[in-house]
């Protein structure tokens, strides 16, 4: 039996309003494709490029608990800021982030990453130097590759030492588009 969209929506809203959800998520349209955006009561937890959410939901459940539910209102704040960013009306995000369970090195790299300004790029080596481990460029690359909150934590602004785009978990086309949007290249 099919559950009507209205009944479905009411359940999801009630669940979020009562605070019974560990992580709420929704699909957000963007110029670089659909994004699966997820937030907990601590803040934005994940942005995923993968349109098939199974793996993303499993990962969210491991991070924050099994009560993972699609709930548009949980990501309203993030959706608004992402829309403004993609519309060229926002250069910095003002969102709390849920970075729980990440190792200290990863957190310190992501904190430095968050300081790379809109429209500018840095290199893996420069980022490694800023966290006090100048020889750890490769480890910084791994942190970028596993970044749970791309776009908001702008790993697209990190390029190779020769200026090559090098790599991006969401694919190089998306990295190029984001940098062009910001007027970086």
């Amino acid at each position, binding site marked *: *039996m*099919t559950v009507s969209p209205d009944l479905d929506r009411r359940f999801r809203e009630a669940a979020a309003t009562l605070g019974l959800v560990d992580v709420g998520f929704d699909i957000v349209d963007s110029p670089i494709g659909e994004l699966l955006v997820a937030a907990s009561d601590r803040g934005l937890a994940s942005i995923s490029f993968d349109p098939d959410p199974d793996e993303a939901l499993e990962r969210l459940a491991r991070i924050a608990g099994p009560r*993972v539910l699609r709930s548009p209102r949980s990501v309203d704040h993030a959706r608004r800021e992402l829309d403004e960013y993609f519309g060229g009306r926002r250069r910095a995000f003002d969102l709390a982030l849920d970075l729980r369970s990440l190792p200290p090195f990863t957190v310190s790299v992501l904190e430095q990453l968050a300081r790379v300004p809109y429209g500018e790029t840095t290199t893996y080596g420069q980022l490694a130097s800023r966290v006090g481990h100048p020889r750890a460029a490769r480890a910084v690359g791994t942190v970028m590759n596993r970044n749970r909150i791309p776009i908001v934590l702008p790993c697209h602004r990190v390029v190779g030492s020769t200026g090559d785009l090098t790599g991006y978990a969401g694919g190089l086309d998306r990295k190029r588009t984001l940098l062009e949007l910001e007027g970086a290249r």
Partner: protein
Amino acid sequence: MAVPPFERFYEEHRGEVLRLLRRRLGADRAEDAFQETFLRALRAYGRLDHGDHLRAWVLTIAQNVAVDTLRRTRPTAELVEAGAEDARPAYTELADLTDGLGSKERSAVVLRYGYDLSYDQIASALGSTPDAARQAASTGVRRIRRRIST
């Protein structure tokens, strides 16, 4: 089996839960009961030990929400009949043994000994405490023993 993300659990069982509630309560009352069923499930979901037999678990929650709804709106005599007819999770091997039990005792015995759920899980399905669930299962087993020994 690990507990799946709630979204997956909800998508898999929402149709069957709604069907059961409509059959028991009619279309109008089924909607509120549907919401209450999944909110009860959500409240308990973070405490589940494993993801086995989630269908039996959520259908038991739905049956109990239906019984609660009927209790609020129907005379007692009708309720007992409705509960005896329908308020039991299916587990064929235990059907004969549990047929004479009240609905809570039967649900507790079936979920504990048929589906091997913890008393925490059974409590959330019955809308009671783990102690009350243990008590219901134990009373049910005692009654079954008494019956088969006579």
